[in-house]
């Protein structure tokens, strides 16, 4: 059994679920890591350290910027010449596209957002969420190779062993680009909610602190955003202490308190951290579908009847502006930081 694992990276920064995919592939047999881009020598080396048996590197400047077409064509060509049984990818913005296109080239299908994968005879049975995780389905793909994008944090990440190495095989890139990358701007704060082990989230409640006096000259909306930024400041302090990421409800995003990349829920990100602390979030169904798989959920909300308490393990009925900083202090002491 031979599995391709596509190592998704952005300017050399690997999406961690790539390594989780590599770990999963090892349980099936021979593992071939596939790395694209002329900025990825370190990524190719790291693939051996995470356990790849073989590493194919399309080390070409034409692949320096991700473009759906060139990446898909390169993957399709490699799959045609190496004949893997399975191609695993992490689930990211890029891989959904390139896997989708490659599947058209190879006349096969893609199982997305997979949280379980078993071998049965010569086929694979994948478990994946449907209806926003309200249901799960088991699905099979009759095409060859089977392609699957795995959900972040669903499979264990293999340990990195710096003593492992090998010879990277350079392979050719396809250069059939029909789109052009014109520029890039990093998000204000790198948010990688999908891979975060800890998320502290804020909702509309973060703007609700009447005792804060905004600087003079602000209109009502500006004052609201200013208050919300103080609230998110407290949330960020807690997240930073715990080495976690900052999440948000849609009301907070729509209110202009924080950018869309932080949004958790149906139209935002689906996350599965070990710890999710929801502050001033009511717990609308569209938010819950994004975070209810967190291992431990803590809710801080003024309203004892807020639906978020129905999914929480621990709850505090109170003002987030008082509780969140107190919690940061308490944890700081207990963690000796």
């Amino acid at each position, binding site marked *: 059994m031979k599995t391709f694992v596509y190592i998704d990276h*952005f300017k050399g920064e690997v*999406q961690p679920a790539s390594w989780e995919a590599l770990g999963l592939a090892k349980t099936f047999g021979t593992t071939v890591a596939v790395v694209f881009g002329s900025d990825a020598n370190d990524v190719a080396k790291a693939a051996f350290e995470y356990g790849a048996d073989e590493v194919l590197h399309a080390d070409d400047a034409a692949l320096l910027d991700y473009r*759906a077409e060139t990446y*898909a064509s390169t993957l399709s060509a490699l799959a045609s010449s190496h004949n893997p049984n399975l191609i695993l990818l992490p689930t*990211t*913005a890029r891989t*959904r*596209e390139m*896997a*989708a*296109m490659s*599947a*058209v080239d190879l006349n096969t*299908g*893609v199982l*997305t957002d997979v949280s379980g994968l078993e071998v049965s005879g010569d086929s694979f049975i994948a478990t994946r*969420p*449907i*209806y*926003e995780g*309200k*249901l*799960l*389905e*088991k699905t*099979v*793909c009759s*095409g060859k190779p089977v392609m699957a994008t795995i959900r972040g944090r669903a499979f264990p990440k293999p340990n990195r062993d710096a003593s492992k190495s090998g010879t990277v095989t350079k392979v050719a890139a396809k250069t059939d680009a*029909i*789109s*052009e*990358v014109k*520029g*890039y701007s990093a998000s204000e704060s790198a*948010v990688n909610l999908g891979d975060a082990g*800890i998320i502290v989230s804020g909702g509309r409640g973060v703007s609700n602190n009447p005792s804060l006096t905004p600087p003079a000259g602000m209109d009502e909306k500006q004052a609201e955003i200013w208050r919300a930024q103080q609230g998110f400041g407290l949330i960020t302090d807690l997240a930073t202490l715990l080495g976690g990421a900052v999440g948000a409800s*849609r009301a907070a995003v729509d209110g202009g308190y924080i950018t*869309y*990349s932080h949004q958790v829920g*149906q*139209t935002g990100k689906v996350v599965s951290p070990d710890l999710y602390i929801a502050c001033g979030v009511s717990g609308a*169904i569209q938010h819950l579908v994004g975070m209810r798989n967190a291992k*431990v959920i*803590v*809710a801080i909300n003024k309203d*004892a009847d807020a639906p978020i308490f*129905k*999914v*929480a*393990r*621990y*709850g*505090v*009925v109170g003002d987030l502006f008082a*509780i969140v900083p*107190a*919690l940061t*202090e308490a*944890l700081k002491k*207990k963690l000796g930081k």
Partner: protein
Amino acid sequence: MKIIACIKQVPDSEAKVTAADGKVSWGDAPLVINPFDEYAVEGALQQKEATGGTVVVLCVGPESAREALKHALAMGADEAILVSDPALTDLDTVGAARILAAAIKKAEGEMVIFGRQTLDNGAGLTPAQTARVLGWPMLGLAGQIKVEARSVTVERVIEEGRQTVSAKLPAVLSVVQSIGEPRYPSFMGIRKASKATIPVWSLSDIGASAPAAIITRTELLNPPVRETSVEIIAGETPAEIAEKLADKILAEKVL
């Protein structure tokens, strides 16, 4: 310019969805336009306002999907097309992409806008697969769109930030929430939509045959029930509550 927005009909996001006798049940919850596709319609209408042209909404689905198309018409779309055929059952995303591509050709679309993903299947594959079948560029997850002199530039919202990507038309796009809140159907729009006749194209109309499914479901499961009882942490002061809560969190060994 002819802009096509691809939409699907799905059970409302508030619906309680369960597996019953191996089938998906959403009780008496209504079927609605896929919420992600409202952004596609919104994006298409914005482009029509910016550069002129017509907006056509396209759906592959059963007769009942007319209602979703009517919603898009009420929002302001000019025309709607339903591709429906008894031979179209159990479409996977590649299959849907082949049918959509054939219909897009027949409708002479120049810019096609998709939602990010469907609420039911949630694959997020159909846009790129349609682009591949057509051989058109794919500009995915756009938070902003700009059309200029036969080329389109989008700001793509990805994990690492925003990326500006452009391509020549015709092209396929998908959009995310940052494109802007979908407008509500106006009173006039609703009246117009209720009178509109929506043509139904069969497979022979678009010169396609029913694609065989490559991906098939073998089992449907209700997710494991989680223990949901909440422990409320109370105390005299925030500090006291925080103290207790911190101990509880530490005891969970998740830090």
